[in-house]
């Protein structure tokens, strides 16, 4: 498979791991945060931890859009979908994320019309096909998915599709990284920078982290070789005492970002003054809401939503895991009360959630949990 197999070739991977071992100072402990949940998933799926020396610690970051969504938002979205005649659509990732009264899938088994879509454009198509129903798209994601939501809303306006709306939970990556850096219990040496987000925003927005916080950043792809190469870059920078943004994922990420995508985002969305993140609390200017001129397609304006803040179940320590303070397996409920089948927190659900990744790929007792 082109563009994949080249980055999984054993001899290249072996060479990269040898380079890492050569560069890593045995007297030093390195803490690298992979911001993006896609990286977390790849690290576990490809067993990359097995290849790294023990003094390189990978810390999972907040870059899992499903995981950072507070439960109240899920309840709000589901309350809209409970209105008669509504079809609730979302990415498959959302389907098992628990709200207070159950996940979208559980609502489905109680009779609500819940459907998985692979893009917001598919949700719009569904609305066109079902003119007597209202189709709501539960939008999630960082700048990676925001452009496709924006383009879908532009198309909905252009084609005057009135039975379609978007419940926007789009968030932005930079404020989340800033919140991590501001957190007092955080000791990160360098960042494996998000790859997919950067295809849209480019590399420039990370420059302040490198400059002001003196933290090297390597914007990284998602194949084993990509991640290992990024670790090589970060080790070289730390050894040389530099702190710069490097673009390991140059085959996909333009330094300046994708202007067309950024334009679509700014046409349709504006920054919310603040937004609540699970684990990180309220972060100012960290999320996108739909602009007034698209009010007709904004589910939050069109429907009354309870907007209740729901505190996370006390037992689960999702916040600490999201911030990288705890590793997934250090959470009190990991693997016993909280499993991918019966998740308490979203980190155990999403393909990008660090708990799910750890449970599925690394937790040696995984198969024993079947009762």
């Amino acid at each position, binding site marked *: 498979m082109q563009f994949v197999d080249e980055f999984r070739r054993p001899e290249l991977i072996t060479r990269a791991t040898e380079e890492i071992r050569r560069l890593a100072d045995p007297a030093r402990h390195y803490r690298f945060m992979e911001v993006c949940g896609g990286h977390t998933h790849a690290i576990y799926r*490809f067993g990359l931890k097995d290849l790294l020396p023990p003094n390189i610690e990978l810390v999972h970051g907040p870059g899992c859009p499903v995981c950072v969504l507070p439960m109240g938002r899920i309840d709000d979205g589901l309350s809209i979908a409970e209105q008669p005649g509504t079809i609730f659509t979302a990415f498959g990732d959302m389907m098992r994320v628990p709200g207070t009264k159950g996940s979208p*899938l559980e609502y489905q088994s109680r009779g609500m019309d819940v459907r998985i879509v*692979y893009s917001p454009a598919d949700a719009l198509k569904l609305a066109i096909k079902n003119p007597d129903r209202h189709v709501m798209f539960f939008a999630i994601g960082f700048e990676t998915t925001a452009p496709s939501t924006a383009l879908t809303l532009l198309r909905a306006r252009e084609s005057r599709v009135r039975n379609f709306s978007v419940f926007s939970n789009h968030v932005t990556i930079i404020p989340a990284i800033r919140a991590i850096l501001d957190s007092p219990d955080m000791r990160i040496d360098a960042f494996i920078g998000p790859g997919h987000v950067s295809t849209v925003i480019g590399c420039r927005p990370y420059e302040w982290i490198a400059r002001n916080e003196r933290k090297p950043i390597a914007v990284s792809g998602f194949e084993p070789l990509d991640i290992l190469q990024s670790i090589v870059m970060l080790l070289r920078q730390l050894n040389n005492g530099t702190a710069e943004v490097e673009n390991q994922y140059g085959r996909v990420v333009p330094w300046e970002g994708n202007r067309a995508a950024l334009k679509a985002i700014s046409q349709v969305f504006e920054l919310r003054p603040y937004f609540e993140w699970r684990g990180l609390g309220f972060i100012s200017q960290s999320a996108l809401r739909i602009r007034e001129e698209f009010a007709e397609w904004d589910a939050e304006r069109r429907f009354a939503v309870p907007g209740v803040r729901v505190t996370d179940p006390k037992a689960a320590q999702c916040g600490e895991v999201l911030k990288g303070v705890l590793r997934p397996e250090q959470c009190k409920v990991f693997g016993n009360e909280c499993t*991918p089948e019966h998740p308490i927190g979203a980190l155990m659900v999403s393909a990008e959630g660090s708990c799910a990744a750890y449970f*599925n790929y690394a937790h040696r007792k995984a198969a024993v949990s*079947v009762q």
Partner: protein
Amino acid sequence: MTAPGKIRFRDARVEMAHGAGGKASRRLIDGLFAPILFPSSTDPLGDAAHLSIDGARIAITTDSFVVRPLKFPGGSIGELAVNGTVNDLAVSGARAEALVVSYVLEAGLATEILEAEIRAMSAAAARAGVAIAGGDTKVVEHGKADGMYITTAGVGRAIPELEISPRRVQPGDQVILSGPIGDHGITILLARGELDIDADLRSDTRPVLPFVDALAKAVGGGIKWMRDPTRGGVATSLNELALDCGLGVVLAEEKIPVRDFVRGACELLGLDPLHIANEGQFLAVVSADRVDRALEALHATPGGECAAVIGEIAAEPARTVVVSTAYGGARVIDMLVGDPLPRIC
């Protein structure tokens, strides 16, 4: 297995995942059906039950088919129903002799479609060498049953050379896979037309009996366990084996045959080929000293050219399936959780 008679299924409602063949299905069966219906049985549940009637070893199985769409590249519900039933018997170590069939038809179903499926069943039965001995028909209101559901029961004669049981599996035994995985599940997913991906891919639905016959002839009792990895895929079947025999299964990722297109579609959709359903493949655990002869026999059977050893049984990690990569990493692969591809067989 659950302690006899003890109901451990705690879910308040049936959800789609309970029918997806993965973890939730197993919890439902082990936690609710088994303790009530077979409270005294201590045998792991297989694809078919083996009974002794007046000294004759008989195998019996039943299966329901609720696939949508009814027709897809490489097959249709009728063909699937015959092959699925014959295969459940085959991997339990039995040759299908006769099937009975029940149809649940939706009012409004075009006769043309029904006739095509009846003909598809007849042709599949002839190909598999099994008689269709009887049946039943019910009709439900329009809007139910997706056109048609088919339920079959099959009865077969145990193949005398074979003794299939997870209890015979030991560390060092080899895991054989008959051919490339994921074709059926991905074909159905694409046939629904919801993804806007086109591909030249066909379901692999076929009877696996010729392979089982060839193996039985070549290595007989050297075959310890078999399974056709349908819903939940290879990962789920092997996790069930790991739980039933109490040992570990270690797979070598680069040895698992997967067509490029299936691999590509899985990469795109975030699925693992090991969790995708198959309808014409099977897994076998064979003792190490007979594995070469087993492979030879499969390679000599038409359609078995891609059969390969994909891993082996190990004492540790117990009750777990691990996939090792060519570059030295490893990951656990669990049963399917949830329901990535609803209603595919």
